[in-house]
C-alpha cells in the first residue's frame, strides 16, 4: 500500500489513472454497440409486429420488474456514494460497506429475475421450449419473448460480472487496499452504472410497452 508507484509503462500515477479511466470508457462504448445490435433487432420486430409485441409485454411481470428497477437504481446510488467516499479519502471500511451493499442489491436483482424466469416458464412463455399464445399474435409474441430472454439474460451475465468485481473490491476496500489508489473503485463504478443504465432501457421496452393507455 505504501508502494504507490505507477506501473512501468507510465510516467506518473496521474497518467496511470487517466489511462484506466479512458480504457473503461472505450470499453463501455464498445458495450453500447453490443447492446445496440439487440435494440436494433427489437426495434425492427416491434415495427413489424406492434400488436404481438404489445400483447406479449403485458405478460411480463411488471411488479417484479419495477421492484427490480428500484433495486438496481438503489445499488447504483450506493456505488456512487462509495466512489465519493473513496475520492474524499474517507474510511476504507465505509467504502467496503457501500460496495458490499451494492453487490448484495445486485444479487437481490438476480434473485428476483430468477423468480420471474420460473414464473415465465410456468406461464408457457419460453420460445422453443414451451410457448403458448393467441395464434393470431403468436409470431410477434414469440419474437418478443425470445428477445426478452436474450436481452435480460445478457444483462444478467453483465451484472454477474459486476457483482463479482464489486464484491471483490468491497473486501479489498475494507482491508484498506485502495487508500492510495482510488481509480479501481471509480472504474468499477463506471461499469456498474453502465449495467444499470442498460436496464433503464430494457425496463420500458420489455415491461411498459402495451400497458400505457
Amino acid at each position, binding site marked *: 500500500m505504501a508502494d504507490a508507484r505507477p*506501473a*512501468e*509503462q*507510465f*510516467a506518473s500515477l496521474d*497518467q496511470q489513472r*487517466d*489511462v484506466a479511466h*479512458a*480504457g473503461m470508457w*472505450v*470499453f463501455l*462504448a*464498445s*458495450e453500447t*454497440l*453490443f*447492446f*445496440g*445490435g*439487440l435494440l*436494433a*433487432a427489437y426495434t*425492427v*420486430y416491434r415495427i*413489424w*409486429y406492434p400488436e404481438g409485441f404489445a400483447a406479449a409485454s403485458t405478460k411480463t411481470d411488471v411488479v417484479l420488474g419495477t421492484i427490480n428497477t428500484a433495486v438496481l437504481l438503489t445499488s447504483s446510488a450506493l456505488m456512487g456514494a462509495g466512489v465519493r467516499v473513496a475520492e474524499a479519502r474517507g474510511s476504507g471500511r465505509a467504502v467496503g460497506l457501500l460496495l458490499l451493499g451494492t453487490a448484495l442489491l445486485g444479487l437481490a436483482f438476480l434473485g428476483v429475475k430468477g423468480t420471474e424466469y420460473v414464473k415465465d416458464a410456468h406461464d408457457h412463455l419460453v*420460445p*422453443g421450449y414451451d410457448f403458448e399464445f393467441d395464434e393470431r399474435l403468436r*409470431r*410477434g409474441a*414469440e*419474437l418478443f419473448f*425470445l428477445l426478452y430472454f*436474450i436481452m435480460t439474460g*445478457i444483462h444478467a451475465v453483465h451484472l454477474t460480472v459486476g457483482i463479482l468485481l464489486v464484491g471483490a473490491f468491497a473486501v479489498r476496500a475494507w482491508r484498506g487496499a485502495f487508500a492510495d489508489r482510488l481509480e479501481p473503485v471509480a472504474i468499477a463504478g463506471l461499469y456498474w452504472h453502465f449495467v444499470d443504465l442498460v436496464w433503464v432501457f430494457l425496463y420500458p421496452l420489455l415491461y411498459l410497452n402495451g400497458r400505457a393507455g
Partner: protein
Amino acid sequence: MSTIAVAPGRGPDESAIRIPNYLNTGTTLRSWLLTTDHKRIALLYFASLTAFFFIGGAAAVVIRLELATPQGNLIGSDTYNRLFTMHGIVMVWFFLVPAVPNTICNFVVPLMLGAKDLAFPRINLLSWYLFMAGGLLTVASLVAGGVDTGWTFYTPLSTLFANSYVALAALGVIVVGFSSIATGLNFIVTVHKLRAPGLTWYRLPIFIWSLYATSVILVLGTPVLTIALVLLLVERILKVGIFDPALGGDPLLWQHIFWFYSHPAVYIMILPGLGVVTELVTCFSRKRLFGYKFVAWASIGIAVIGFLVWGHHMFVSGQSLFASLVFSFLSYVVAVPSAIKVFNWTATLHGGWIRFDAPMLYALGFIGLFTIGGMTGLFLAALAVDVHVTDTYFVVAHFHYIMVGGMVSAFFGALHFWWPKITGRMYPEYWARTAAALMFFGFNLTFFPQFILGYLGMPRRYHAYPPEYQVWHVLSSGGAVLLAIAYLMPLVYLTWSMFRGVRAGPNPWQATGLEWQTPSPPPKENFATTPVVVRGPYDYRDRAAHPQHG
C-alpha cells in the same frame, strides 16, 4: 555519400558484445508465453498469423486447382463450399483483420510514440490468448468437417439448412472478436495517453492516425458482429426463429447487422495498409508528406463514413430502392478520402529522390492495385452496374485487389521496412525485390482475369463452369501458382536473415520516426530515456545527407 554512419555493416565481422535487447532478455518458454512486452507479443502474433495465412492459402490453392478445368473433377461441390468458406473465415478474421494491427503495430506503435509499452500490457497478452482460442475453435470446425455457408454466414442457410459445423466456427469468430476489441481499446488509449512529450496529434506519423481510425472501427464494429453471431447461435442451437421467415423472422436483419460490422471491417483491413504506405512513400522518396492534414483526416473520414455504407452489399436483396440510393451515394462519398490519399502519395513522389528498395516496391504496387480495387468498387456502388455483376467474379476480383493486392502488399512492405528494427538484421535485398516483383505479377495474373470472368457472367462460389470460361480460369490458376511461390520466398529468406543477415544498425533507412532512434533490436524498455519531440514527422528535407542510390 552518407554523412551519417548508419549504413549496414558488411559480413560477419560484427561485434561479439552481447547488448541486452528484448530478444535476449529472458529466453525461457515461460518468458515468452507470459510476456507483457508488446514486442514479444507482436512476435507471438507473427508466428500465429503466418500459420493461419498458410492454412487459408492452402484452401485457395485447392480452389484454384479445381477451377483449372470446367468439370468438377478434383473435388465435389460440397467440399468446394467448405474450402472457400474456410479460406474466407481464416483469411478475414485470422489474417487480414489482425495482420498489421497485431503484428507490426503492436511492435512499432509504442516505439513511434516514444512509450515504454502499450497502455494495457496484460490486456495485450490476453488478446493473443483469445486470438489463439478463437483460432483453435475455428481450426476444430475445419478438422471436424468444415463449414459450407461462405464466410458471411447468411441466414437462413446458416441457421436452418447448413449441415456443417457452423456453431463451432461462429463461436471461434466471436472469441477472436473479443481479441479485436481488446486490441482496438488498447491502441486508442495508448495513442491518447502515452505520447512522448512534444508529440502532438499533428506530429504523429500517419501510420498512427490510420491505426487510430482502425481501432475505432474495431471497438465500435466488432461488438455488433458479436451480438449478430450470438443471435445466430441461439437460432441454430435452440431451433427458435430470429431470422427464420417461417417463424416470423427477417433473414435480411442478419445481413444488415452482419454488414454493419463487415463493411467497416473492410476498412479495418485496409486502413493500416494506407498508413504503412504513407510511411514508405515518404521515406523512400525523401520527401515530406504532401498535405499531411488531409491524409490524416482522410483516415478518420474513411472510418466514419465507412460505418454508413453497409447497404451496398444488399442492392439485390430486395431492400428499399431509396435505401439503396442513399447507400450508393454514401459509397461514392467514402471513395473521396481514399482518393485523397492516393493523390497525396503521388504528389509526395513528385520531385522526390526515389529509391526502389523492396518496401518501396511493395508500396508502389499497393498504390496501383489499391487504385484499381477502389475504382472497381465504384462500379459496384453504382446501382445498375451492381445488378449485372453482383455475386460474380467481378466482386471477387474487386475485393481481392483491395485485400490482397492492397493489404497483403502493405503487410509485406511493412514487414520488410521494419524487419531490421524487429530482428536487428537486414533481409537480402535482391531476393526481397524479386519476391515483390513476382508477387505483383502473380497477383495481377491471378485476379485481373477474374474481372473479365465476372463481367462475362461467371458467378462466384461454383466449382464447375461452362467451358468458354476456361481460358480465364487457367490464367488465374497459373497466376495463383506464381503468387504461392512469391509468398513462400519471404518465409525462406527472412528466416535465413534472422541468423545470417547483416547487422542493421538503429536506422538503416535514415527514416525520421522515433522508432529509428533506438537500437535494433530495441531494448526491453524501448528507450534509454524518454524522447522529446520537437518537430513533425517526415522531416526529410536534407537531400545532401541521402546515401547514393543502391
